[in-house]
């Protein structure tokens, strides 16, 4: 009986080793590789569109003071044998086809059987005034020094874009996106899994990632929409129309903002703002602290489901500000503009109330509620917490 057990165990082990061996062998089947480089060149008038697509391989497009489109295609064939890999690579034909004002980089590839592959990476130089559209299923995309509109899409790979004079539409499923100096129009960035970094952007921008941080610096003009399902959102040195930043899990950090409206929301994370100016500023988090320093706004809202609120207005903030600071669990510290005048409503269910500003009140005086006026003005302050202290500074 015992012998039977040992026999079965030994057989299973042998089977596992055999399968593992096969697997390793499978990996080795496509070990042979053959590289070949093809160059193509054709005139490309300024203002034309260049389309380059590859299934497997990277694409790099650079603008330059040239009149032709120069394509260097690096073709790599992979097969079980070197001869077969060479045959695959040799059979690839690269052509530049022009229809109207659109030039397409075409790759005519042989069909590949199992364990054989062809990758084609492009390094392309175009006139600066070219619009570029490129896509790769597996590979990185890099675009630079182009004054036209660009779009880049990859299923798996990073995207890097620099010095673009037109709009940019960038999309990757798995990979980070880096943008720098985009000045001509709308910037749209989407990634399912990867961080986004954008710097020196002029124009409207919509950046979103499912998993990763969003870091932006030096935005000017246009509306900004930043979204991360899981990651920190950082925005610094930005001027805009409307700014809407949202993260589901992560903090929002903002510094030196100027615009018509600022809306920052985190489902779970703190919000920290320094030197921000807008007609309306709305900062809210479900779980986390809201900290604002030197904020200037006509209408100011700070909310937290569970967290402290610490907000200081700048000296430039209007004295008739309307501010609503509400938290369910947390203390509130608020410094209104120096000359604030208007109605004040402070209330806490569990906690104390303290004011450094003279509040004129009447009616029932209670430690949990203070309602009255500061000076004579049209401002409105509502500071409300269910559990925490209130300090009006």
């Amino acid at each position, binding site marked *: 009986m015992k012998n039977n057990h040992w026999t079965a165990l030994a057989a299973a082990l042998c089977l596992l080793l055999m399968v593992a061996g096969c697997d390793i062998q499978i990996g080795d089947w496509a070990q042979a590789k053959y590289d070949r480089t093809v160059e193509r060149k054709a005139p490309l008038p300024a203002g034309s569109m260049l389309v380059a697509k590859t299934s497997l391989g990277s694409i790099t497009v650079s603008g330059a003071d040239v009149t032709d489109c120069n394509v260097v295609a690096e073709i790599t064939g992979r097969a079980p044998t070197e001869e077969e890999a060479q045959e695959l690579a040799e059979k690839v034909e690269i052509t530049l086809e022009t229809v109207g004002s659109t030039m397409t980089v075409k790759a005519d590839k042989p069909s590949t059987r199992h364990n054989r592959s062809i990758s084609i990476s492009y390094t392309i130089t175009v006139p600066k005034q070219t619009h570029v559209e490129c896509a790769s299923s597996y590979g990185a995309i890099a675009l630079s020094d182009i004054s036209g509109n660009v779009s880049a899409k990859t299923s798996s790979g990073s995207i890097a874009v620099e010095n673009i004079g037109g709009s940019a539409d960038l999309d990757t499923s798995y990979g980070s996106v880096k943008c720098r100096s985009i000045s001509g129009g709308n910037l749209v960035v989407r990634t399912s899994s990867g961080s986004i970094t954008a710097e020196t952007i002029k124009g409207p921008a919509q950046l979103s990632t499912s998993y990763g941080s969003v870091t932006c610096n030096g935005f000017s003009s246009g509306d900004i929409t930043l979204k991360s399902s899981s990651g920190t959102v950082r925005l610094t040195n930005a001027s805009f129309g409307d700014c809407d930043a949202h993260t589901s899990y992560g903090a929002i950090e903002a510094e030196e903002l100027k615009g018509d409206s600022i809306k920052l929301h985190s489902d779970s994370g703190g919000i920290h703002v320094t030197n921000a100016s807008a007609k309306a500023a709305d900062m809210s988090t479900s779980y986390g602290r809201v900290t604002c320093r030197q904020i200037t706004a006509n209408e100011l809202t700070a909310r937290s489901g569970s967290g402290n609120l610490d907000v200081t207005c700048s000296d430039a903030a209007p004295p008739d500000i309307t501010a609503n600071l509400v938290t369910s669990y947390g203390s509130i510290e608020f410094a209104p503009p120096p000359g604030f005048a208007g109605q004040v409503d402070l209330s806490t269910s569990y906690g104390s109330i*303290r*004011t450094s*500003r003279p509040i004129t*009140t009447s*009616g*029932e*005086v209670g430690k949990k509620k203070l309602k009255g006026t500061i000076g004579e003005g049209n401002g409105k302050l509502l500071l409300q917490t269910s559990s925490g202290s209130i300090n009006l500074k």
Partner: protein
Amino acid sequence: MKTHHLTKFSLGCLLCLLTFAAGCFVNIGSCAMQAKYERTVDLSAPLSPGSTFAAQTHNGPITVNGAEAGECRLRATIAARAATEEDAQELAEKTEITLEPSGDRLTAKIDQPKMKMNQSISVSFDVDVPNKTDLELVTHNGAVVIADITGRINATTHNGKVTAGNVSGTTVLETYNGTVDCTQISGDAQLKTHNGSVQASYSQAAPPVCDVSIVTYNGGIEFVAPPGLSARVEADTHNGSVHTDLPVTVVGEISKSRIEGTIGTGQGKLHLETYNGSIRMR
């Protein structure tokens, strides 16, 4: 078992004895001071406006009314109690009331005989004085009522309420057990009681700047301010709430039982304090 019954029986006897003794005691009390004799004395003396009238009694109320007169008219009601009517009458007859002038001061004095056990004399004063008179009134058991006086008023009682109406100047009223009720006040006021509420209502003609201190230990405070009151305010209660119809400007920690701030420009002082009771400012 027998011991238990004996204990019950003994307790019953003790209770009966106590009831009997108490009955006797009550009877003794009523028997001892059942006779009472009362007489009144009317006196008058010149009292120029701006002078001081002083009166002190141990048992009995004091009522002072201001009038447009140049003299003091006093009615003293002497009530003597003793075991017999003769004794009570003798006590009352031997009690002398005088008005003694001294400079610009007129004092109502009581010269009463020595009393034996279970004898008592009470003297109440009902006085008319010129409107502009300073008052110094003291009683131990009895109310104090003052009306229509302009001057410095200082009135104290231990057991009894203090009532003042249409008084101006500086008003200091104190009782230990009783309420303080002032209406139509003008000027500074210090009102104090240990057990009782305080009600102070300023007149519409009162100046807006005044120093007011109202203190009670057990009782509420109701304060009606003069129009345009300007004062630093401290209102403090240990057990009770603070309600103000007057707009008070507050700074610092807000407390349920204390309010500290200013009304108007904060020139005068308003101090309201109670231990057990609520405060209301109107």
